Structures are given as structure tokens and as C-alpha cells.
């Protein structure tokens, strides 16, 4: 038996080496393909943003021959007609995002406190209703939603956007908070109650401080949700004062003579905050993704 394995060894080793070489070459080829696939549309954003013309002047270029940061500096000075309102628009986007973040954390934590800590309902009711909203696409709801907003008198009102985004971000927030809260022993609440704390005090002094990491996660989720949403903003906001960046981009897109270099410069700026947040938090996002894991 040992003789057999001995005679087979050398061939096995070269075979192994060839196989490993093939795998390495394959990996590198795949990496190149993936890089091209991922980066071409992103490269295109920079190509257009750095183009001096922008106003539909076209060449066969695949790299910027006369790259210029004019599109970005014009945004900064905001003296060109097309982009005069860009900073108020950014302010609107940031304002809506921050309010949605705060309200989602607040409304979500109140509801999850009542359901989880005060044992108002059962697990499956919240998870089911949360999932239901999570899976219904907004495009299905939008037409009656607009009608209802007319009835409420909330058209062209940033609070309508905030209300809509909080409504759709909160179910997922409740879900996360609910499962995080299970890590905190209920005995803490009971001890505080025996010591004479009111419900509100338990919520403020025990629940909120202990839930801080989950609240941060939920707030970030809501902020990104509001930042990435354009549908409700586009549908509900119309006047210049209320326009957000997402709406401005959409309006550029509808314009036949759109200044594409400005549009792409704005797109790049608008993409930076979420990318920064994702990369700052990528360890937590990765662990959040694995939390689902294969246990099911």
C-alpha cells in the first residue's frame, strides 16, 4: 500500500500545482472582470463631471482630454443659473434626513418599548406587520398615497415627506430594536419599578441608555433610507423652496438640454455621504448581515 501511494505522489503534486496555478489565474481574471464591471459606470460619472462642455457636446472620448473641475467649482460658487439653488437643496436633503433619523429612532423606540418591555403584544404581530411594510413596494401605494396627501393638505410640504419616510423606515427599526432589547434583562425594569420609578423614567433612564447602539444603527438606517429615497420627495415636493437634491437631479434628467457635467458633479457629491457612512460602519454592517446567517 505504501508503495502505491509513493509512486503516485509526484504526479499528484504536479497536478496539484497546476490546479493551484489555474485557480490563481482564474481569480485574477475574475478580479479584472469584476473591477471593470463595477467601475465603468462610476468612472463614467467622473468622466462627465470633469468634461468642460457638459452641454451636450460630444466627442469619442474614453478619457477626459481636457479635465476641469469647473463643474465642482461652479457648484461651490453657485453663480451659474443651473445650479444656483444647489446648497439650499442640499440643506433640505440634510434637514429631511436628520428629522427622519430622529423621529424614526423616537417613534420606533417608543413602540418597541411598549411591545417588548411592557409586554403589550406578541412577537409575531409586530414582526408580521413590520415585514409586511418592508416587502410592499412603494410604487404600489403611491397613487392612492398622493390622493390621501391631497386630502390631508400636505402636498409640497417637507413634513409630508418626513411622515412618509418615517412610516416606512420605522417597521424595520422596531424589528431591530425589539430583538436587540431581548439582550437586556427585564429584571432591570422590574427592579426600577419596585424602587418607585415611573414608566417614563424606566424608558428614559434605563431603556434608552442601554439601547444606544441599536438606536444608532436604526438612526443610521433611517438617515440612509431618507437620503436614498427620491420617489416620495419627487412626488410630494414641487416648489423651489422645498426641492431636495434628489428632486433636482430628477428635474435635470427631465430637461432636454440638461447640463450633464453639473448633474454628475452633484451626483458625485450626493453619493459621498452614504459611501462614507457605509465604509465607516462596514464592520457592523457585515456583522448585521451575518446575524441572519444560516440559522433558520
Amino acid at each position, binding site marked *: 500500500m505504501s508503495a502505491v501511494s509513493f509512486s503516485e505522489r509526484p504526479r499528484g503534486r504536479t497536478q496539484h500545482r497546476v490546479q493551484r496555478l489555474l485557480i490563481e489565474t482564474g481569480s485574477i481574471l475574475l478580479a479584472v472582470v469584476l473591477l471593470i464591471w463595477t467601475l465603468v459606470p462610476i468612472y463614467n460619472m467622473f*468622466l462627465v463631471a470633469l468634461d468642460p462642455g457638459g452641454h451636450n457636446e460630444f466627442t469619442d472620448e474614453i478619457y477626459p482630454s481636457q479635465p476641469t473641475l469647473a463643474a465642482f467649482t461652479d457648484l461651490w460658487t453657485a453663480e451659474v443659473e443651473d445650479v444656483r439653488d444647489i446648497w439650499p437643496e442640499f440643506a433640505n436633503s440634510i434637514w429631511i434626513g436628520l428629522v427622519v433619523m430622529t423621529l424614526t429612532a423616537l417613534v420606533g423606540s417608543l413602540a418597541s418599548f411598549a411591545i417588548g418591555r411592557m409586554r403589550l403584544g406578541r412577537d409575531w404581530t409586530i414582526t408580521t406587520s413590520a415585514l409586511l411594510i418592508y416587502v410592499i413596494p412603494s410604487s404600489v401605494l403611491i397613487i392612492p398615497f398622493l390622493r390621501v396627501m391631497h386630502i390631508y393638505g400636505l402636498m409640497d410640504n417637507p413634513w409630508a415627506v418626513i411622515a412618509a419616510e418615517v412610516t416606512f423606515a420605522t417597521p424595520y427599526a422596531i424589528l431591530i430594536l425589539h430583538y436587540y432589547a431581548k439582550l437586556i434583562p427585564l429584571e432591570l425594569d422590574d427592579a426600577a419599578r419596585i424602587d418607585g420609578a415611573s414608566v417614563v423614567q424606566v424608558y428614559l433612564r434605563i431603556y434608552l441608555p442601554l439601547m444606544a447602539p441599536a438606536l444608532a444603527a436604526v438612526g443610521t438606517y433611517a438617515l440612509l433610507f431618507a437620503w436614498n429615497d427620491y420617489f416620495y420627495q419627487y412626488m410630494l415636493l414641487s416648489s423651489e423652496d422645498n426641492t431636495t437634491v434628489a428632486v433636482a437631479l430628477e428635474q435635470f434628467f427631465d430637461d432636454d438640454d440638461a447640463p450633464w457635467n453639473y448633474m454628475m458633479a452633484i451626483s458625485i457629491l450626493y453619493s459621498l455621504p452614504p459611501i462614507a457612512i457605509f465604509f465607516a460602519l462596514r464592520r457592523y454592517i457585515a456583522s448585521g448581515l451575518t446575524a441572519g446567517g444560516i440559522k433558520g
Partner: protein
Amino acid sequence: MSVTQEAVAVRPVSASAPRPQPSRRHLHGSDFTWSIAFVVPYAALFVAFVIYPMGYGLWMGSDPALYGELLADPRYRRAAVNTALFVGLAVNVQMVLALLLSGFFARRRRWIKMLLVVFILPWTLPAVPAYLSFHWMLVAYPQGLLDNLLSALFGIESVFWFHDGWTALACNIVAHIWKWMPLWTLVFLGGRMAIPQDLLDAADIDGASRHQRFAYVVMPLLANLYLVSTLIATIWAFGDYSPVYFVSGGGPAFASEVLSTLGYHYALDFANPPLGVAANLSVLALLIPVAVFLMSRLKAREVLL
């Protein structure tokens, strides 16, 4: 442990210390009021912005004649075919590729970890900028980047991607895959990482080849995750109007519309909101079975995407 054994095991404990559970379940007086007060903000939002519009929509689309009108409209039939193609192709291609890529990214190499950071960029981009770039890259007149690349590298003449409904639809599908494949790759990567290493070692010791290890160890463990992810991706793809709206614009002449964008056009461009609602409700009819099946497969912890 059988029920009787459990009861036996519990009895001595419960005899010495009264079990607190039953009394905890009931809320009394002011506690109950407070707990209701805490839920009211969300309940109010839910009723005002989900239940009421939903009911309103069902009422708007309740006339059966609307559905006859839809079926008689060639634009609707084309959009239905497009939706089936969009969802079927986009979801399955991105899930299979994501599953395979997760195996690639699971390799413990530094450069592969760095590549992953670049690879997830499309997922982190907001939808509007990402799809706008796709649109601009593909427009043949004025010339877009892709055509320039094709002609520079292979001497291929400009392709009018958006002049034909089928190529326009293909562009939308590719854009959707580009945006969402990184997320599912991360999900499957997380699933693979959660597989206990000793299982894989055991398979290696038993002499399993790579393919056998994938087919008999990894895949059975990932099957539920794959199914749940596919269902979620299906539901998202049904409702994803952004690539259609921004990449092809639904053109030419509504040839690349899907149901979710067509409903919008009926309502706002043709001033026929009930017909738009009916078009959207016809999607919902397909979505509900998927959603119900999803719920039945899902333990809530798995939704932590």
C-alpha cells in the same frame, strides 16, 4: 426531553419559588394606558399613511371593468411580459452570480478583501446617481462611454440601446443587477462565514472534492438563506421602478415599461388614476403569494439585512 420529563425537572424549582410568568403577562391600570400611549405615535402614522391609502387604493381599483381595460391595452400586455422578464432574469442571474461570487470573496486573501470593498460600491450609491450614470453611459446619440469603449476596443459601431424595446429592457436588467448583486454577495458571504469550519474540515478529511463540498455541505446549509433572499429580491424587483425610469425611460414608446412604472404613467400622464391603481394592484396580486410564502419561511432574525 419529553414533556413529562420536563415537568418533573421543573417541579422542584417551581415548588420552592412561585413562577413569576403568569402575573407578568397582564398589564394593569396606568401601565396599560402608558403602553398604549407609547404605541400611539406609530399606530397613528401606520393608519394615516399605510392603512388609509391602502384602503383608498383598493376602493379606487375595485371596478372590474378596469381590469378588462388593462388587458385590452397592448401597452399593459407588453409591460406584463417585461415585468416577468425583468423579475425572472434580474433576480435569478443576480442570485446565482452572487452565490458563486460569495465563494470567491470567501477566500482569505488580502487583495480579495480589498476588491470586495470596491465591489460593494454600487450598492452604497444612491439609486438616482447610479442609474443616471448608466443612462448617460448607454445613450448612443449623443455618444455614451460604452459605445466609445466598444468602438475604441473592438471597432463596433454605435448601438442604439434605447431604440429597441428588448435591448432597452436588457439595459434596465443589467443596471438592476449591477446595483443589487453586491448586497446579495455580502449576504451569502455572511452565510458562508457562519458555516462552522469543522464541517468543512470534516468534508476535506473524507476526501470531498471542491464541487462535492459545495454541493453536499455548503449548499444544503445555505439553501434556506438562498430561498429567503430570492423571495425578498423578487419582491424588490417587482417594485423597482428606478432603472426603468432612469436608464431607458420606459421607451421607445412604452416598449420597456414594467407594471410599476406603467401604473404611474396611467395615473399621472394619462390622467386615469383608477387605471393606474388597477395596474399596480395586479402586481400586488402576484406579490401577496410571494410575501405570504416568504413570511412562512422566515424567522424574524433573518431579516437583519
